[in-house]
């Protein structure tokens, strides 16, 4: 068999293997991928932010607001050595905020910072409104204090648990 024939034969076999894996795993089986990112345009999205709210008025802590009117001071993920996409996905994809998941998030961000600071975990929702504007709103969901974690009293328990 010539080199070219052998090469294309191996390529086609690998393509079959590749196709089977991505077809059965929603388009992703690293490093095999159909690159589906950004394939669904116009959908609402959810990301996440952290703010230091140690000095924020307790009456304003749980307000849903916009990016321009957030309480507290920003906490840069870069400065604490956390990948911001990881953090966002952890927060936005968690459906069940049980003790294990909360501890995992506190561990990811770094318990040492929480000894002296109160950190608010915000979900950030973006969506199209009408034909010509994008609205971004921020919802405080968890308050990390040194000795405890508080849920937003304005949100129902279904928000934190599907059970």
């Amino acid at each position, binding site marked *: 068999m010539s080199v070219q024939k052998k090469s294309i034969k191996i390529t086609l076999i690998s393509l079959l293997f*590749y196709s089977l894996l991505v077809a059965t795993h929603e388009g992703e089986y690293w*490093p095999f991928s159909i690159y589906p990112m*950004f394939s669904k345009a116009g959908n609402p999205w959810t990301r996440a932010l952290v703010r230091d709210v140690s000095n924020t008025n307790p009456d304003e802590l749980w307000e849903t607001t916009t990016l321009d009117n957030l309480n507290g001071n920003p906490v840069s993920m870069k400065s604490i050595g956390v990948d911001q996409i990881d953090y966002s996905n952890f927060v936005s994809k968690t459906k069940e905020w049980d003790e294990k998941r909360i501890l995992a998030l506190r561990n990811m961000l770094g318990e040492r910072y929480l000894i002296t600071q109160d950190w608010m975990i915000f979900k950030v929702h973006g969506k199209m409104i009408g034909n010509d504007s994008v609205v971004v709103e921020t919802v405080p969901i968890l308050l990390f204090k040194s000795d405890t974690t508080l849920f937003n009293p304005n949100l129902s328990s279904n928000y934190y648990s599907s059970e």
Partner: protein
Amino acid sequence: MNLGSLITDNLFGKPDNLTKAHRFYFKIFELYIVYETINLAWEWGLYTLKISDVVLPLGIANIIDISFMHDNYLPVINALAISLLLLFSFFRIGSKWLYAVVFVLLHFQYVARFSIGEIPHSANLVGMAIFSFAVGVAAFKDELHRYRFIIGFTIFYIGLGYFSASISKLIGTGPNWIDGRHLWLWIAEKSTDILSREGQFNYNFVQVLALNSIPAATLMLFIGIATEFIGILIWFRKLRPYIALALIGMHFGVMMSMNIRFDSFMIELIILGFPFPELYNKYKGHLHYFRRV
């Protein structure tokens, strides 16, 4: 010549023999992939030490519980093993299957690292290049045959990847995908990511242009999807440099409009997109002339 033969010839038909320039070029490509892989293995391994829960199982983690890689030093040991095996592979010491072992270990490293929700693609081309070396070194003995196969196989999957990205968009959304308002939503999303990462954010001039003009934003998306669609033409040798340039330009545009960097994609496109050994062999007489002057 039918299309199948034409594609086969364009991917695997050259060179006829290996010159010094080809050998040097191939080792530079291999060195870059080895360097990137070692870098990724350690970056992912060290970061995995911070992870203690699985939110989104990827790849092999759908079959086995990947949490055995968390809360211990296995990711670091894995990074060490990958690094050593890559050094043996690079110098062709030991089994022809070493790159294949690296490929499997790197997959474990990836799924352990990205088990908390993120599905990044920035390292996919490096992973596919390791796959190419794994298959090429195992299947071919002769250095010329390995060269032709590994370069051609890598280019095959680069072209296929860009093409499938454009088709995913057409299936996921349809022709309406290019509506500039979709870019507004992505700019807002990525701006939030930068705000989260840096603690502050400012729009650049490309983003301001897109946000102020629907036609401008629509044109940006059209150029993006059209470039991905023609990415498959990188399979053809004569078109390869032009397609590589277009794809590099597209990545630059994505970086400016959405703050997403694909550095390793761009470097790999620069290495594989242009016929450096052939250009060197063609013009080496002139280089010699310049040295004498």
